[in-house]
């Protein structure tokens, strides 16, 4: 039984002129990229966004210095692309970072149980849309994709301590946003 080819092998084939080998890369990562786009930009734009991401990845392959880091590099392209889309979307209000000074103190004991219902799902989505794009992105990458702090640090090229702070602020903002929309 043949072992599946590594990213480095496939990229080498592409660099030798076998452009069709890129289809193997697409098939390998399409699930992750599409689901990432789906969770960030919504179902209606997910497929277009994912296609653009793979196209950008193909065009930028000559700039990839270490093929074994392809997945992190692809995520980075996806991150930047989705961030651009989010930034262009009209967001009337975002949760102000100043408001983070508000303590999360005095949380209603029934608050967690309210978050279990199907109706709350929509409210959580609305609250996510109120977050600044970077906060929404980092939260999605952590919660949806399960990226570790180390992987996030490599992806976003920021120190792990900064990842800790950003995730904390994103989660705090989300709670605040939920309170703001009346949950």
């Amino acid at each position, binding site marked *: 039984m043949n072992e599946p080819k590594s990213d480095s092998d496939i990229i080498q084939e592409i660099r030798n*002129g076998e452009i069709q080998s890129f289809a193997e890369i697409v098939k390998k990562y399409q699930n992750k990229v599409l689901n990432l786009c789906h969770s960030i930009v919504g179902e209606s734009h997910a497929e277009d966004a994912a296609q653009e991401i793979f196209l950008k990845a193909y065009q930028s392959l000559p700039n990839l210095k270490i093929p074994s880091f392809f997945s992190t590099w692809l995520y980075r392209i996806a991150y930047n692309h989705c961030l651009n889309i989010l930034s262009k979307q009209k967001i009337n209000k975002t949760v102000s970072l100043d408001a983070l000074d508000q303590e999360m103190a005095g949380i209603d004991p029934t608050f*967690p149980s309210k*978050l279990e219902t199907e109706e709350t799902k929509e409210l959580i989505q609305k609250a996510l849309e109120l977050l600044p794009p970077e906060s929404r992105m980092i939260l999605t990458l952590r919660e949806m994709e399960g990226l570790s702090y180390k992987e996030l640090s490599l992806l976003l090229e920021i120190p792990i301590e900064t990842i*800790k702070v950003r995730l904390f602020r994103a989660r705090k903002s989300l709670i605040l946003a939920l309170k703001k929309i009346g949950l």
Partner: protein
Amino acid sequence: MKHEEIEELLSAFYDDELEPLQKNLVTHHLQSCQNCHLILESWKKIKQNSFSQLPLQIQENFAEKVMAKIEEKTNPVSFPLFKLSETFSFSALKTSFQIHWKWLALRTQWKIALAISSLLFILLIPLERNPDIQEEPDSSEMLLENIENNSLQAENWLFSETEAQKEDFMEMIFEKHNKNI
């Protein structure tokens, strides 16, 4: 440690990304802080309710669509007829060349460069002397040839040229004379 400092560690504690010492501190704090418990519980419920959605149904031909898009961008000649104007635009050709050139392995790039250089070298080799083009004859020889027909011209030339040329001309006259003899 202050409550605010512990609270800042909650997120990393939730993600199990804390050092053992800090983890113990937060664990100890949670034994007596109901609010921090509620915060952790809230994050857990949000994740379960919102971030655990079913994977998107992926169309079977997604990869084909992507490759078609790549083909469109990198191979302009496959465009439909109504896009021919873009096909032959300089920017499309330039982009296509740049993308394809970058893709070639270094050895292949060298081979192509060598082939182009050789071709240019061959084309720039000076052309053979065109037999139809005659060198302008030396003025002395021309003059000698026509001297019988136009002695006046010869005489004028003789008095206008340099001394060296006059000597050459005289030598030729003598040679001709000697031959006739």
